[in-house]
């Protein structure tokens, strides 16, 4: 690592970073390329040494590993462990890596054989329960979102390079939604997980009049009990609320409990 610059007199090294993908849509990596306007600045901040989707050269000498996707097969577990060994800092990039993402929706059937048959019939295929990467290795930092928000990633990576502690907003999406002066989705008769979901996306979905699906997982003080009451009062079925709570895996146990309730009620 060569020292290239300083900030307030403190030497700042340009870290070598690698991007890695497990089971995912690779959208989060693409978001990095979607940074057209600031891509070049980003490249001046870090040295990308491994990015299969974008470059041919690869090196196992990296300081920070951004891992996208969840683990759904044994070989991914192995790859992940190697990445962990090579990297100083492992960053879970996006909801798949943080919570299992949409991939974990198949877990809800508790029957992998059925799942396999549903798609591949009798053709033999290997898969296991979709899990976040933290189920296998120590994760140093999580960047939430499906997809990740480039402005947020840039901010986080700058802090990472500066060696600053990284904290996520502790308030729910509503806070940002109101600051964007949106009309509340509940007023429009739509469900929204904004009141319980961790902010940081700048109320991406509600600002487009789409209720939040909770891709960033729960806010620290998430009051799910009250959300259920609100939905009930607004004539939004438990199923619709559940569809959202379990979509990205962030609400884990709470969503599973609710599924039991909903299925019991059917």
């Amino acid at each position: 690592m060569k020292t290239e610059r300083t900030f307030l007199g403190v030497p700042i090294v340009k870290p070598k970073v690698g991007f890695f993908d497990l089971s995912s849509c690779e959208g989060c990596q693409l978001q990095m390329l979607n940074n057209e306007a600031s891509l070049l600045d980003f490249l001046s901040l870090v040295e990308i040494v491994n990015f299969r989707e974008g470059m041919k050269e690869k090196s196992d000498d990296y300081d920070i590993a951004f891992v996208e996707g969840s683990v759904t097969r044994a070989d991914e577990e192995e790859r992940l462990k190697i990445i962990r060994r090579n990297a100083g800092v492992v960053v879970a990039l996006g909801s798949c890596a943080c919570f299992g993402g949409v991939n974990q929706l198949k877990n809800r059937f508790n029957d992998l054989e059925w799942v396999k048959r549903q798609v591949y019939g009798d053709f033999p295929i290997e898969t296991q329960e979709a899990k976040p990467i933290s189920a296998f290795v120590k994760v140093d930092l999580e960047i939430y979102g499906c997809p990740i928000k480039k402005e947020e990633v840039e901010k986080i990576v700058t802090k990472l390079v500066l060696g600053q502690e990284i904290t996520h907003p502790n308030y729910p999406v509503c806070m940002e939604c109101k600051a964007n002066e949106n009309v509340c989705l509940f007023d429009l008769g739509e469900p929204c997980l904004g009141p319980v979901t961790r902010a940081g996306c700048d109320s991406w979905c509600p600002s487009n009049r789409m209720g939040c699906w909770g891709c960033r997982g729960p806010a620290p003080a998430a009051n799910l009990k009250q959300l259920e009451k609100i939905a009930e009062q607004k004539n939004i079925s438990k199923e619709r609320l559940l569809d959202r709570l379990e979509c990205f895996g962030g609400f884990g146990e709470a969503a599973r409990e609710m599924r039991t309730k909903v299925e019991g009620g059917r």
Partner: protein
Amino acid sequence: MIFKVFQAGEMETLFGLLSVNRIVGPVEKGRDVDGKPLYDFDVVYDFKDLKLDYGQTIHSAKNYFLPYRENLCTFTFDNGDWQKEVDFGADRAHVFFGLHSCDINALNKLDKVLMGNIYPNPFYGAKRSNMFIVGYSCTPTPSCFCHSMGTDSVLHGFDLFLTRMGDEYFAEVQSARAYHILERMETREPTHEDHLHFRKTTSKKRSLFTCEVDTSDLTKILDMEFESEVWEKWGDKCLSCGTCANVCPTCYCYGVEEEVNMDFSHARKVKQLYSCNLVDFAEVAGGHNFRPESSTRLKYRYYHKHRGFVEAYEESLCVGCGRCGNACLADITVPEVIASVREGEK
């Protein structure tokens, strides 16, 4: 004060005269599930879009003088040294067309904290000094309780205040600027009948309120009920989402964050309006949180507004606009909370 009367049709002329400036006013933002219109303040380009007979807007107009997010300063780095540049974030004057008396009173209250003797805030001041306010009389909605807070009429803080009286408007003119603008329209001097009519109109408005808050001895009651269990009842409901503070015309507290550009050439200090209901509002070094439960945070909001501010300025920091109660998904409303605290848990 100088009063004038003009024909309802002249309203568009007034709008036209002012439209060389940027006009902010109530517009329709959509319809709710029941088809009821939803209003908010926005820039108005066309008189037809101005919905003067709005009941209440979802948000207050504060984004124009107390933005949710604001750059406090910019740093430029050069060779180990840095320069700091401060821009108060105002570059033009705005016309606020159609503010109700509650919102103008809210501004007057904010002035006391933000423009008072102790460290007046120039970011607010710069915008506040560039507001031309056309007030507009309202019809109370079911959630308005401004009369309880003494803010159903406003005595100062505007340029022009208009009250609809039949086919005419009764205008209270408070600034020379407003006077000169009215000179360019067709107006007449009010007669004695007009005065009576005006008084009848305002007293009729007063009779339309359906929502009440008993504020007598409230500061003391809040102290007495500090340990009351009612707070927990409300705390259980609260989502700690900050919606109430965001829509409130008088909530002004904030947090600050700094961020460095990716090329390290610049940095910014950004202010973001915060809310005392958010979980980390009162967390300090070492992780100690002075208000870890949502009930204590919610209580604090009432404390600040209905006790602390009263102590400091002899008036409450709540104008009774009802927005926080309307916006709160958990249906936590000021009148209900205060009533329950008064009664104590039974």
